[in-house]
Each structure stands twice: as structure tokens, then as C-alpha cells.
């Protein structure tokens, strides 16, 4: 049996020559993602929107606040692509500038909600005990006020306004993230590699952030993307109900609410903001879907 080493070496070399190598994980991810056309298109749309939103003050064809009383309630035309509103302001320009507000509000509120919810969820899932019970009961109570109701309740308490909308949306994002991250933590906690880390004597903190957290990032990313869509809708809903941002700056939801009065005569005032919201939210949802499918090892 002296030749066992060389024998296995021989087969190893032979194996290397004859069998191909494995690919890197990021490359695989990107490759897989690119095969999902809808996701790629959605990502493209979002990037476009973001760029347009950032550049909006420089690229708007008209000053969004400038009223033109000669051109009130005009339908779509060559000069005003998406028509004008009841003050003669160009809708396209207003929507473009409004994109900044909507996207920023949605992004910030979801980031805050995710951060808080993730920390809570991770801590609850990892340490268990009274901490978990407290966090989960708290979430249960918050969950009893479904979605927008919670946001409305928050706004009812702290009043209307942009920042308050951000807070309201963040608040109702927290419980859902806390729950998701907690269950993700629970499942990762049972993984073998965590046991290994623990058996090596790692401190709890270290285990939590260095080992468990990366395992839960997948859930977080997918949900984050989808919650942005929800946040945009929520913010628009709040604005529509009159609880949102101040009415002077162009705001998608507010535009819909104001345009409501002119539904019969000038439906385009309602049509375009709605379509834009729809497309934006759709893009985020499809992107979230695509990300989830790409990250799911069960789907080839």
C-alpha cells in the first residue's frame, strides 16, 4: 500500500485535467441575474429614474412651479408631453422633480426601517429569551395596525409633513423587517458553521455580526427592494389623503389628489402621475423578484 499517495495524486492530477473548475460566486450571481430579462429591465428602469431624478432640476423642460394661465388643463401635446395641470404648470416637469422627493422619501424611510428592524430582528433571533418575546410582542401589536393604518396613526400623532411621512413609513417598515430578520437569524443560527464558531470560543457579538448577519443578508436585500415599492405607494397614499408633504413642492400623491377634481375634464392630470407611480413600484417589485430568484439556490 506504499503507493497510495502517488495513486491518489495521479487520480487528482488526472481529475484536474479532465474535469473543469468551479466559478466564483459573484460571477455566478451576475450571470444568473442577467438571464432574468425582466429583472434586468427593471434594474435599468430604476437606474434611469434615479439618474433622471438627480438631474431633474437641470433637465426639466419647464419650471415646475411656473404657472401659465394661458395653458391650463391642456392635454398632452408636442410642447407639453404630458399636459398641464390646473395652473398651467407642465406635468412632466413636475413629475420629474417629484421623483426626487418620492424616491428620497422612500429610500430613507426604508433604510431607517431596515436598519432598526434588522438590528431588532437579529438580536431577538440570536439572544432569544425576554428580548425576543418583547420584540416579537411589540411587532405583533404594531402588526395589528396593518400597513397604512400604522402610518396614518403615526401621522395623526406627529402631524403632516415630509419628515413625518418618512418617520411614519419607517415605523411601519420596522416590524416586518424585524420578523423577517428574526426568522432568518433563527435558521442561520442552527447552521453548522455557527456551531463551529461557537465551539472555537467566539464571543457572541462576533458570532452575531460576522457570521450570522452575512447569512441573513439575502433575505434583507430582497425585502429591502420590495419595501421600497411599498414605501413609495405608502408615501403617495399619505399624500393623497392629505397627510403628506407640503403642497407646494411637486409630489406624486398630492398631484393625484388635486387632479381628482378635474377627472372628468382633464383625466391626464390623474393618468400620468398614476402611471409613473405604477411603473416605478412595478420596477422595484420585479427587481425584488428577480433578486430573490437569483439568490435562491433551488432555482437554476
Amino acid at each position, binding site marked *: 500500500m506504499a503507493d497510495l499517495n502517488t*495513486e*491518489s495524486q495521479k*487520480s*487528482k492530477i*488526472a*481529475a484536474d485535467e*479532465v*474535469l*473543469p473548475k468551479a466559478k466564483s460566486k459573484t460571477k455566478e450571481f451576475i450571470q444568473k441575474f442577467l*438571464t432574468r430579462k425582466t429583472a434586468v429591465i427593471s434594474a435599468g428602469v430604476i437606474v434611469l429614474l434615479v439618474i433622471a431624478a438627480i438631474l431633474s432640476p437641470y433637465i426639466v423642460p419647464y419650471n415646475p412651479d411656473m404657472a401659465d394661465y394661458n395653458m391650463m388643463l391642456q392635454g398632452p401635446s408636442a410642447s407639453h408631453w404630458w399636459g398641464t395641470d390646473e395652473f398651467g404648470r407642465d406635468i412632466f416637469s413636475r413629475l420629474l422633480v417629484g421623483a426626487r422627493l418620492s424616491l428620497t422619501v422612500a429610500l430613507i424611510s426604508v433604510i431607517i426601517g431596515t436598519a432598526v428592524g434588522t438590528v431588532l430582528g437579529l438580536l431577538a433571533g440570536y439572544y432569544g429569551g425576554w428580548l425576543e418575546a418583547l420584540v416579537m410582542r411589540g411587532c405583533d401589536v404594531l402588526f395589528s395596525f396593518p400597513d397604512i393604518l400604522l402610518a396614518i396613526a403615526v401621522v395623526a400623532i406627529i402631524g403632516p409633513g415630509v419628515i413625518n411621512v418618512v418617520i411614519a413609513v419607517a415605523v411601519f417598515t420596522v416590524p416586518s423587517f424585524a420578523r423577517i430578520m428574526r426568522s432568518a437569524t433563527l435558521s442561520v443560527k442552527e447552521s453548522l458553521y455557527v456551531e463551529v464558531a461557537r465551539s472555537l470560543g467566539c464571543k457572541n457579538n462576533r458570532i452575531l455580526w460576522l457570521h450570522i448577519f452575512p447569512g441573513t443578508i439575502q433575505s434583507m436585500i430582497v425585502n429591502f427592494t420590495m419595501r421600497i415599492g411599498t414605501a413609495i405607494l405608502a408615501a403617495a397614499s399619505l399624500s393623497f389623503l392629505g397627510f403628506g408633504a407640503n403642497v407646494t413642492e411637486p409630489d406624486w400623491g398630492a398631484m393625484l389628489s388635486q387632479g381628482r377634481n378635474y377627472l372628468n375634464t382633464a383625466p391626464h392630470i390623474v393618468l400620468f402621475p398614476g402611471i409613473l407611480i405604477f411603473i416605478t413600484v412595478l420596477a422595484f417589485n420585479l427587481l425584488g423578484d428577480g433578486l430573490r430568484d437569483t439568490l435562491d439556490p433551488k432555482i*437554476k
Partner: protein
Amino acid sequence: MAEIILEVKNLTTKFKRDKGTVTAVDNVSFEINKGEILGLVGESGCGKSVTSLSIMRLLIDTSGKITSGKIILDGKNIDDVPEREMRQIRGKKMAMIFQEPMTSLNPCMRIDKQMTEAILLHNNITKKEAYERAFQVLKSVGIPDPKNTLQSFPHQLSGGMSQRVMIAMAMSCEPELLIADEPTTALDVTIQAQILELMMKIRNEKNMGILMITHDLGVVATMCSRVVVMYAGRVMEEAPVEELFANPLHPYTKGLIASVPKLGANVASLPSIPGSVPDLSVMPKGCKFAPRCESQMAICHKEEPELMLVTEGKMRKCRCHLLNSNKEEGNV
């Protein structure tokens, strides 16, 4: 002259994957006689399950398709019959039992409903008669209290009981061929023995042919009269069981037999076959087993060996270049 119940000729099944087409079963052929138990052996991923699913034509919800070959059941071609006809054959002329009995039964349906469903499908009898038949069949597979079992839901049964129910369900329409896909792998060793005994008893009573799919050589030794060894979707060796164990020809078979731990043997390490089963979508050139083979030669990496008949009459076949070289040197 034994009668043949199942003949598989050059069966090839391919799957469509994102990366391309994968051949899970490549040119596989074998026969089963009535009352014979044929063992289909190999590691996970070698294509044995796909072979059985192909025979039953149960590839519907997969991306798999039988691309060529013939399947002849009791003298009749079934590889191309319309689905309607196939449904009459499934469950009646040939039946299949699966590896995980606990999940192979519908958790939301009572046992009696599940059993009578099968019986009523293939027999023109009343519900009451079907229930009676189910009762009888459960009794014959050794279930102590058939009435209670019939009223139960699957989650209330143990693993062994579930598998007995599965066997009963498969037997209820008196098939002539039973395909058993790793029927005992998920069960405890003692239950395993009981189930195998049950299967042999049924075989003896009904002269039923059995295709026994397993990776457990112990089961093969106990049950089977002949064995087919598969690797990477191909047949590597075929032999009567005693000969296979006494004188394995293919290096893979040798490796499989050698890796079974033997009681009393004092070894520092368990012998194993180095490497692992290749990914079916990226197969090596030449003989598929060559990279792991201890007797690999230069030609093994270039050319795939043919499956050759070793001894006439005894159905001994082997797919290995060693045979050729032995022949050349005059050693056979």
C-alpha cells in the same frame, strides 16, 4: 425458458437545463423476467431513479424526455403509447413504490380514500367493494389493524407502516411488474428486513417481476438474482448476483464492493473510491469513470469503452477497456 416481463432497449433520457441538455440515462438496456428480481445499483446521481421514472413515463413535471430507446412491457411497446393508455397501465400492470414513504402519501387524505382511489381507477367495482379490497390487501402486507389504519391520516403512521401501506397500494391492482426505488433506504434496519421479506413473499405468491433500485449492496445480495451497475447514466456492468460479488470485473463495481465495511476487519481507514460523481453537464471525455479509476489507462481518457458481452448465455456484460487489453493479451 423464462418469460420476459420488461425489456428496456437502448433507453436514453435527456434533461433540458439552463446550461444545455444533460443526458441522465444513456443507452441503457436490460431485461427482467417474470418472477425475477433485478437489482439496479449505483451511487446517487447515476441515473437509476431517472431510469425507473422513464419506464413509468412519469417525467411529466420535469424537463426530462425519453429521446430514444424502447420499453417493452409484457410484449407491448409502451414508450410511445398515448398518455391515456399509459394511465391504464400505471398502477395496474406495473406499479411503483418510492423511497420516502412518509412523504409519498398525501397528508391531507385519509388512507382509505387514497387506497380506494387506486383500486377504483382500475376496477369496475363499487366503493364498498373497493374498501373491502383495501382492507384485504392491508392485511396481506402484515398490518395488524387494517380498519384503524384505513381511518388514519399519513402523519399518524410510522415509517414502516407507511411503506407497507405504499406496497399495499401498489399491490392492490395486482401488477405484474413492481418498480421499487430505494424502498428501504429511509427505514430502520429491522424494519428494512421486514419490508424486504414482505416483497419476497409477494414475489413468490404472484410471480411478479421486481426492479429493485438501490445503492445498498446488502439489499442486492439478499434480494436480487441479477444485478445491473450504473454510473453516470450508463450501464457499467451486468451479472448474476453471485458472480458479481465473487468476481467483479469493472473497477467501479470492485470499488463499490470494497467500500462496504466488513465486520471484524481491522482497517486503519475505510477504503473508498476517490473523487466524486461528475456533474452530468460537464462530463469528462472518454470513460466516465476514468478520473476515479485505480486502473485508468491512457486510452480510458480518450475513448469510451463499449458495453461488451463477456460470457455468452450468462448475461455477463462489462464496459471497460481492461477487458480489451486482457483479450489482447490473451487473458479472458
